[in-house]
C-alpha cells in the first residue's frame, strides 16, 4: 500500500528517499520535446529539479549484434538508421573505419564528393536542430523557415542518391556515383541562398527577449564537466575547448580547405546556439572551396582494390575475372585483415567513433559504435539538478540528441 505523501512510480524499482513534499514526474518517453523516446524521471521541489534519472532503451534495435551477423557492405544501410538526421555522416564513419582497417586509399574525386555530402548533412542536421529547438522553446516561425531551407538541402541529396532521409550515399571505398549533371549549379544556388536564411533566423532569435531569457545562463556545462562526461562536438566547443576532429585529426581533404572552428567560453545554451549558427557558415565556406576542387579531379570514384572492392560496372560486364571477384564479394563479402581499429569522425553532433574488431571473417567479430548523443544524454543526470522544469526542455533540445543513435 502506498503511504501518504510517498508517491512512487509503481512500475519502476528506483528509490527516491525523501520525507518531504517532493514530486516525481515522468517526463516522456512520449513527450513532444523529449526528442524521441527519452524518459526522464525528475524529482521536483516546487519547480526546481532536485534529481534527474534519464532512462533510455526504448528504441534499442541491437545494431551492434546485427553488425556481427552481416557482411560489411550489408551493414552500411543500417548505419543510416542511427543518426537519422544526418545519415551520411554515419555511413561515412563506418566506411572510413573499414577503409582504415583494410588500408584503402580513396580516389580524390570520391573524397571531394564525400566532403560535399558530409558538409551538406551537417547543414541539414543543424537546420533541423535550430528548427526543433526553437519550436521547443516557443518560436514557431523559425521552425517553418528552417524546414524550408532543409528541404532545399534534401533536394540536393535526392538528386544525388535518390533518397531524402536514409541516403547510404557513401560506400566502402568511395562513392557510388559521380555528381549528376547540373548538381553543382543547384549547390551554388543553395549556397547563395543560405546566408540570407541564416541572417533571418538570427534576426528572429539573436536579440529576441524570450529566446535570450530562456537560453542565457541555462544549462551551464563547465569545461571540467564537459571533459569528464566525454562531451564532444558543439557541446564541448560551447565550453571553451577548441577540439574539432576535422581540424585536429584531419581526414579526407579537411587539411586542404580553410575553415574556422567556432568556440565560446559562455558554456551556456545561448553560446552553443551561436556555435551551431556559425558552424553552418563554416560548412558553406567549405562547400564553396570544394566546387573548384571537384573539377580538377580525375573521374575515378571507387578505390582500386580488387580483393575488397568490386571493380567498376563496365569492367565487370566485360572482363571475366572482375565478374568472378564481384560475385564472390557480393555473395561472401570482403574479408578484412585481422586486427582492430577505432576511427573517429566529426559528425554534426560530435565525435562519432567506430571500433571494429576483425578476425579475418566476412563479419566483424565485434563492432562498437561510439555515438555522441549517448554521452550527451548521460550528462543530464548531472546537469539538470538545480534547473527549473521549464529549462529542462531547453537543455534537452539544446543537447541535440537523436534517439536512433543513443539506443542504436
Amino acid at each position, binding site marked *: 500500500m502506498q503511504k501518504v505523501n510517498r508517491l512512487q512510480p509503481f512500475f519502476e524499482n528506483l528509490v527516491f528517499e525523501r520525507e518531504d513534499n517532493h514530486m516525481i514526474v515522468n517526463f516522456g518517453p512520449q513527450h513532444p520535446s523529449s526528442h524521441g523516446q527519452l524518459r526522464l524521471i525528475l524529482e521536483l521541489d516546487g519547480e526546481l529539479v532536485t534529481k534527474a534519472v534519464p532512462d533510455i*532503451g526504448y528504441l534499442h534495435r541491437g545494431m551492434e549484434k546485427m553488425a556481427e551477423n552481416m557482411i560489411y557492405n550489408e551493414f552500411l544501410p543500417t548505419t543510416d538508421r542511427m543518426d537519422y538526421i544526418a545519415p551520411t555522416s554515419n555511413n561515412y564513419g563506418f566506411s572510413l573505419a573499414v577503409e582504415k582497417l583494410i588500408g584503402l586509399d580513396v580516389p580524390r574525386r570520391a573524397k571531394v564528393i564525400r566532403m560535399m555530402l558530409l558538409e551538406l548533412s551537417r547543414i541539414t542536421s543543424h537546420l533541423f536542430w535550430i528548427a526543433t529547438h526553437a519550436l521547443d522553446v516557443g518560436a514557431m516561425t523559425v521552425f517553418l523557415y528552417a524546414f524550408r531551407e532543409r528541404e532545399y538541402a534534401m533536394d540536393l541529396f535526392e538528386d544525388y542518391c535518390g533518397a531524402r532521409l536514409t541516403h547510404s550515399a557513401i560506400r566502402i571505398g568511395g562513392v557510388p556515383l559521380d555528381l549528376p549533371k547540373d548538381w553543382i549549379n543547384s549547390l551554388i544556388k543553395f549556397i547563395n541562398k543560405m546566408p540570407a536564411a541564416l541572417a533571418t533566423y538570427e534576426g528572429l532569435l539573436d536579440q529576441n527577449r524570450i529566446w535570450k531569457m530562456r537560453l542565457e545562463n541555462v544549462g551551464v556545462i563547465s569545461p571540467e564537466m564537459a571533459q569528464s562526461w566525454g562531451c564532444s562536438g558543439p557541446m564541448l566547443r560551447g565550453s571553451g575547448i577548441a577540439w574539432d576532429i576535422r581540424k585536429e585529426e584531419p581526414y579526407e581533404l579537411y587539411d586542404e580547405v580553410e575553415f574556422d572552428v567556432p568556440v565560446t567560453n559562455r558554456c551556456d545554451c545561448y553560446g552553443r546556439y551561436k556555435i551551431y549558427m556559425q558552424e553552418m557558415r563554416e560548412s558553406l565556406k567549405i562547400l564553396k572551396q570544394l566546387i573548384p576542387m571537384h573539377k580538377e579531379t580525375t573521374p575515378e570514384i571507387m578505390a582500386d582494390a580488387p580483393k575488397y572492392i568490386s571493380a567498376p560496372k563496365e569492367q565487370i560486364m566485360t572482363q571475366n575475372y572482375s565478374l568472378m571477384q564481384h560475385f564472390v564479394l557480393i555473395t561472401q563479402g570482403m574479408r578484412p585483415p585481422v586486427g582492430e581499429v577505432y576511427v573517429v569522425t566529426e559528425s554534426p553532433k560530435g565525435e562519432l567513433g567506430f571500433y571494429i574488431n576483425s578476425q579475418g*571473417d566476412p563479419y566483424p567479430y565485434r563492432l562498437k559504435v561510439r555515438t555522441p548523443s549517448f554521452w550527451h544524454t548521460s550528462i543530464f543526470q548531472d546537469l539538470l539538478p538545480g534547473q527549473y522544469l521549464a529549462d529542462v526542455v531547453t537543455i534537452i533540445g539544446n543537447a541535440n540528441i537523436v534517439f536512433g543513435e543513443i539506443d542504436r
Partner: protein
Amino acid sequence: MREYSDKKNRQAKAYYSDRFYLSPQVPKEKVDTDNIFLKDIKSLESLFVIKEAYIQKGQLVVYISAKDNLKVMKFLKNKLKYNFLSDISAVDWLAKSGEFEIFYQMLSTSKRKRMRVKFFIKEKEEIKSVTSIYKSADWAEREMYDMFGVRITGHHFMKRILMPDDWHDHPLRKTYPLIGDEEAQWYEIDKIFGREYRDVIGPEERDCAKIVEKDTHRFARIKHEVPFGTKYSSEETQTEYQEEGGIPIVRKLKKSDVKILKERP
C-alpha cells in the same frame, strides 16, 4: 531430428571458408616509433605491469592486468593528461578462452593522441568501476554490464540501461541466439497475460510477409480489394469507392487546374 547448432557461438557463420586462406594482419608497430607514446609507456611501465604494448593504426594499445585498472586510469588522467574517456566496451572471447576483453578508449587533447587500454577478465570476475575518475564511464559501464554481463563493483547505479530490468541473459554475448532466447520470445506475453497464456496466444509470427486471406481486418486481400471487416467469401466483392456523404474522391485530375513548376525553387 533437430538441426545441430553450436551452443557456444550462435552467430551467423560465413557459408564458405577456404581452409588454406591466410588472412593478412593489420600491422603492429613498435612503441619506440612514436616519441610521445614511448614516454607514456615508460612512465606506465615504471609503476604498473604492462603485458604488451604496440601501436596499431596510429593508436597506442596497452595490455594491463585487470586489478590495476582503477590506478592506471587515475595515472592516465592526472599524470599523462588523457583527459577524455571516449568509450568503454568488451569483446566476448568466452568460447575461445572463457574471457572478456575489456577496452578503454582514451583521448588526450593536449597531446593529440589516442590510446586503448585493454585487459582480460574471466567470465565471473569483477572489475572496479572508473566512474570516480571519468564520469563518462557511468553509462558505458552500465551498457557493458547490460550487453555482456561484465560484473562491475563500485558503480553508484549499476542497472541495465538498454534492455528492460527483468531481461534474461545478455544480448551481445556470442551464445545469445539471434532471434532471442525463450524468455525473450515470450517476454511480453509472460508479462502481460502470464505464462499460462503462451498456449492460447501461440508463438510470434516471424514471417513479415505472411498474408492471411480470410482476415479482412488486417489485410485487404490480394486478388480483389474488400472493405474493412467484411465477411470472407471466395467471390469477388463489389465495392463502391465513393462513400455516401463521405469526402469526394478525385477520379479524374484536370491538368488545367494544376500548377507545374519548371524547376525547383
